């Protein structure tokens, strides 16, 4: 066990930069998720930690040791692959035993530890099966056991759930998280699914085009995104371009003046106002009275989503679906509505 430190890690392919200047510290026992759209460099970063890709610059340190130039087999990481990557010609037990064999662990101890690891993922009864005879979820659990049995210093997960169907995904997700916490594993997980990242990781790293945009807990990223990309990627968000007008609020490019308190920025510099859809309150208004007009209503069960034209700016509003009989329930496109929000809930962010 140990911590993982990335220092100014960079990978260039010819002129294109895949990963640039990534600094990150994963503390002992912590689970950190690399999150971002495809092509953002998250997988390249993980593969540099595992040793499958040689960095162009920067360092990887595992438990205090610089492993940047070490081959994958000398790194002491345990990786779980998106495609499971089990050895198809070996039984489940042989798969799990492989890493121990490479470490020259004696036969008796090997057998005990293999069964222990399989019991951990509740697959000890399938030890003699071949991977091809198992379901996707079971195969992924074998892969977990295989990576864990060697007690790696760092646990690496590359999109471990994306080949599973929705129901299994939730199950395996819980399983990975509980194992990780129980065993105190220093873990780096790559995912493009924000829900996965939010529910599993202690901290998240949002990446875009090879760079780290922001590092923080789920709450920090959601409540105080540092830039419009993070605000839009973690949860849904109204991102309105325009510029602050002192204490008056924020002047959207469409002309609307939006109340916000963070408009301390000097007048004249462009910015983006981030406003979460669920922070906006919506009320019915007399025709012709409100500045806002309803454009679309989508019933989503527990919630209802409204698209509102707010003086030329389109805003998405999400509210709990009003109870039967509430006049709000009968709102239809074209109706006048009134929108209100706490000015403190609207965050002013630098333009992209």
């Amino acid at each position, binding site marked *: 066990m140990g911590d993982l430190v990335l220092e100014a890690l960079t990978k260039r392919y010819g002129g294109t930069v895949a990963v640039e200047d990534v600094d990150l510290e994963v503390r002992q026992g912590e689970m950190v998720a690399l999150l971002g759209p495809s092509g953002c460099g998250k997988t390249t970063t993980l593969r540099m930690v595992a040793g499958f890709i040689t960095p162009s610059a920067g360092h990887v340190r595992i438990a205090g040791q610089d492993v940047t130039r070490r081959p994958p087999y000398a790194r002491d990481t345990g990786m779980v692959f998106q495609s499971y990557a089990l050895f198809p010609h070996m039984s489940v037990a042989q798969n799990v035993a492989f890493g121990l064999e490479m470490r020259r662990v004696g036969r008796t101890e090997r057998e005990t530890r293999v069964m222990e690891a399989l019991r951990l993922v509740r697959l000890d009864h399938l030890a003699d099966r071949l991977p091809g005879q198992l379901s996707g979820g079971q195969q992924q659990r074998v892969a977990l056991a*295989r990576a864990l049995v060697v007690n790696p210093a760092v646990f690496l997960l590359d999109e471990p759930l994306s080949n599973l169907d929705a129901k299994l995904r939730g199950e395996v997700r819980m399983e990975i998280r509980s194992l990780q916490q129980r065993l105190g594993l220093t873990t780096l997980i790559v995912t493009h699914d924000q829900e996965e990242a939010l529910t599993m990781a202690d901290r998240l790293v949002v990446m875009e085009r090879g760079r780290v945009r922001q590092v923080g807990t789920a709450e920090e990223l959601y409540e105080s995104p540092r830039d419009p990309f993070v605000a839009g990627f973690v949860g849904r968000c109204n991102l309105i371009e325009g510029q602050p007008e002192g204490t008056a609020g924020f002047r959207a490019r469409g002309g609307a003046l939006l109340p916000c308190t963070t408009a301390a920025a000097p007048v004249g510099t462009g910015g983006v106002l981030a406003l979460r859809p669920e922070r906006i309150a919506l009320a019915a208004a007399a025709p012709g009275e409100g500045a806002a007009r309803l454009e679309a209503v989508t019933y989503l069960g527990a919630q209802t989503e409204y698209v509102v034209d707010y003086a030329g700016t389109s805003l998405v509003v999400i509210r709990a679906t009003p109870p039967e009989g509430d006049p709000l329930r009968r709102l239809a496109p074209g109706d006048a509505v009134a929108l209100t929000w706490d000015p403190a809930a609207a965050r002013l962010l630098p333009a992209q």
Partner: protein
Amino acid sequence: MGSLLLRRAFYRGSIAFAFLLMLAPVLTVITISFFRQEIVTFPPEALTLRWYVNAWSQQEFARGFVTSLQVAALATLIGVPLGTAAALALQRSRIRGKGALNALLLGPLAVPGVVGGTALFMFYLRAEFWLDRDITATLEGLVAAHVLLTIPWSVRLVSASLTGLDRSAEEAAANLGARPLTVFWRVTLPMMRPGIVAAALFSFIQSFENLELTLLLVGPGRTTLPVAMLSYLEFRMDPTLSAVATVQIVLVAALMLLTDRFVKLSRVV
């Protein structure tokens, strides 16, 4: 509705007809091998196994059969490892000119057998002169020629199985502490096994049934089965040949079915 049924019936009929066209000669040969009379006439007077007995007693066939087995086995043993190594290099290494190399390795398949055979014959004659030893009509000469069949087929079949191979299993092995050579022996090679077995079986068949390439390279006392059959045909025309052909068909068909279990031949042939 009616037209759909009609169309379906038409498709099925066409497919059945095509199969009939392809299988008719084979089925005819097999049927004739059991006819008793020497000159083939329908219907047969009676059915018999005497042509099989006759075939076995013909020294040329028995010897040709043994020679063919030897040549095919040796050419397979030499060609498959070489072809496998070449396929690995083509798929995995960073050498330059892979396209050209691939074309060169598959080249023998594009050259008509008779042309290749003639070229080899002339080359062998010259080499015999320089080396002052026999090459045509020797086992070595035949094996060397047939390696030209087994290498391309091995490259093709092993390459096909390599393309579908999941590289992440190899990465997982490295991640678990296996050095490159261990990864190869413990993971890569076992995962390639179906392709290699298919390559071996198919190479054997190609060598065993080859006529065109071999035709000029045989000599008295050293003849392969297909060539022996052709020579027999020049002088006689009784069902003995059908009996030999039937044995050959059964052997090749069995090997083909076996091969198909390892690598779907429809993917590579």
